[in-house]
C-alpha cells in the first residue's frame, strides 16, 4: 500500500538547539491525523519540516513515496499555514487569494483554463465563502480569513491537506464550516494532517492522534478519551498547582 507520508529519524534544530528529535511517523491514505501538544512541543516545526520550509538536520522525509526534494507534482500537497499576514500591503479579494492555490497545478506561465475556474469555485463553496468571493480579505473576520486559506489549499485539488492550527481563535460558524470542508475532503479519500491545540469540533473526524512533547512523539494511536468528567460542559478545570497564598506585593 502506498504511504502518503513517511518520516524516519527526523531531527530539526534551530541554532543548534534541537526542536524535534528522532521523529518517525507514517501516514496512510485516508487517515485524518491530529498533531497535538503544548506550545513549544514542536508540532508546528514538524509540519514545516514535512512541507520543506524548515530543513531537517538529519533523517528522511518522503511524500507519496518520493524524497521531499524530488517531489515534482507539488499540487498533491495542500498547505494551510497559520493565519498570519493574510492581508498584505495591497487589497486582495478572497477569490484572488484562493486562485493563488491553483498555480501549483496550473504550470508556470500557463493559462488557468475552465477546470481551474471550477476548482476555485468549488473550493469557495466547500468552505462556505462563495458569497464573499469578491470581498477584500482584510474585511473578513479571523475565521473567514482562515477559511480563505483552506480554500486556497483545496483549489489545487490536493491529495494531502496539511494544516497548522486552523481552529485557533476561530468563531463557531467558521469552525463548523471548517469541519464540514474537512469531512467532505476526507470523504472523497483525502488524507489530512492537522495541528491542533485541542480536538474541539473536529473530534469526530480525527482517526488518529499523535501527541508531541519536548520534540518527541509520546503518543500515537486512536484519539484518547478525556479523563473522566473532563469533557462534560460543567467541568471546571482547576489544578491545585500551588497552595493558595496572598499575591506577592512588588516594591522598588
Amino acid at each position, binding site marked *: 500500500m502506498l504511504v502518503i507520508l513517511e518520516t524516519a529519524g527526523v531531527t530539526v534544530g534551530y541554532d543548534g538547539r534541537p526542536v524535534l528529535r528522532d521523529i518517525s511517523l507514517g501516514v496512510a491514505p485516508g487517515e485524518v491525523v491530529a498533531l497535538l501538544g503544548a506550545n513549544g512541543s514542536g508540532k508546528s516545526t514538524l509540519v514545516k519540516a514535512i*512541507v*520543506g*520550509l524548515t530543513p531537517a538536520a538529519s533523517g528522511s522525509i518522503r511524500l507519496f513515496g518520493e524524497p521531499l526534494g524530488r*517531489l*515534482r*507534482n*507539488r*499540487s498533491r*500537497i495542500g*498547505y494551510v*499555514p497559520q493565519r498570519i*499576514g*493574510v492581508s*498584505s*500591503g*495591497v*487589497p*486582495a*479579494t478572497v477569490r*484572488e*487569494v484562493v*486562485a*493563488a*492555490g491553483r*498555480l*501549483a497545478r*496550473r504550470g*508556470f*506561465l500557463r493559462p*488557468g483554463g475552465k477546470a481551474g475556474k471550477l476548482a476555485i469555485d468549488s473550493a469557495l463553496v466547500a468552505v462556505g465563502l462563495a458569497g464573499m468571493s*469578491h*470581498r*477584500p480579505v482584510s474585511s473578513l*473576520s*479571523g*475565521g473567514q480569513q482562515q477559511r480563505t486559506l483552506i480554500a*486556497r489549499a483545496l483549489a*489545487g485539488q490536493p491529495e494531502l491537506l496539511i494544516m497548522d492550527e486552523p481552529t*485557533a*481563535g*476561530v*468563531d*463557531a*460558524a*467558521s469552525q463548523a464550516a471548517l469541519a464540514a470542508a474537512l469531512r467532505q475532503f476526507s470523504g472523497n479519500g483525502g488524507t489530512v494532517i492537522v495541528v491542533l491545540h485541542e480536538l474541539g469540533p473536529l473530534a469526530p473526524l480525527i482517526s488518529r492522534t499523535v501527541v508531541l512533547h519536548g520534540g518527541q512523539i509520546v503518543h500515537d494511536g486512536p484519539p484518547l478519551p478525556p479523563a473522566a468528567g473532563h469533557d462534560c460542559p460543567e467541568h*471546571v478545570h*482547576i489544578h491545585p498547582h500551588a497552595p493558595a497564598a496572598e499575591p506577592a506585593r512588588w516594591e522598588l
Partner: protein
Amino acid sequence: MSYLTSDFMIRALIGALLVGVTAPAIGVYLVQRKMALIGDGIGHVALFGVAVGFLFGTSPVLTATLVSALGAIAIELVRERTRTSGDIALAIMFYGGIAGGVVLIYQTSQGTNATLTSYLFGSLLGTTSADLVVMGALSAFVLSVALIGRPWLFAVCQDEEHAKVSGLPVRFLNLLLAVTAAVTVTVAMRAVGLLLVSALMVIPVATAQQFTRSFTATLFTGMAIGVAVSAIGVIVSAEVDTPPGGFIVVVAVVLFAVVATVAGLLRSRKPAPLPEAPEPPDVVLHQVT
C-alpha cells in the same frame, strides 16, 4: 499653448507617459510585499551606474540598468538571507552607491552640477528620440513582466512560504521582480530622476488602494493614475515654467491627499458593519473563590 505641439514637448510627454504607466505596474508588487522604499534604494545605486557609463564613454542608461540590476539582485539576496536585520547592509549599499556615483561623476568630463541634477531630478525636456526608443523597449519589458506574470508574482508577494510549498519558482520570481524594478528605475531616471523614481512606483498605488477592493483593480487603477499625474504634471509644469520631474510627483502627492481625505470622509459616514460572530476568547478565566 503652441509650445505643447513642439517636438521637445511631445517627446517629454511620451517619456512621462511611459514612466507613468510602468512605474505603478511594478510598484504594486513592491507595496504588496511592504517594500515600498526599495525603488528608492535602487535609484541610489543606479547613480553609480550612470557614473560608470560616463567613465567608460558608453551609454549611461545601459550601465545604470546593469548596475542597478546587480544592486537589486544583491538587495534581494540580503532580504532572502536575513529577513529582518538587513537594514544596515542595505543602507551601506544605497549610500555607498550614491556617494560613489557623485564622486565618480566629478572625475569625468561630464562632471558638472547640471549633469548631476539632471539624473537626480530628471530632465524630461531634454529627452531625445533615441532616448524614447530605449525607454519604450525597457517599458515593454517591465509591462510584460508585471502583466503576464501577475498570478505568480501576486502569489509570491502575498505568501512566499505558501508559494514555496506549491512548488512555484520562488527564487526566480523574486529575482525577476528585483531586476524588473531596477529596469523601471532606469526608465524613470530621465523623467523624474533617481531620487523621485520611488514616488511614481508607490504613490499612484497608494492612491488607488484608497478605493479599490482587489489586487487587479489596484494594479490597473494605479497605472491609470500614474499616466494621469504624469500628463498633468508635464503640461502644467510647462504652463508655470517649472521642471516637470518634481512637478509630476507634487501632482501625485496632491491627488493622493485629496483621494485619501474623500475616502476617509466616506468611510466615517457609514458605520462599520458589526462582525458576524464575535471571535471566542482563547482563554476563559473563572474567578475562584
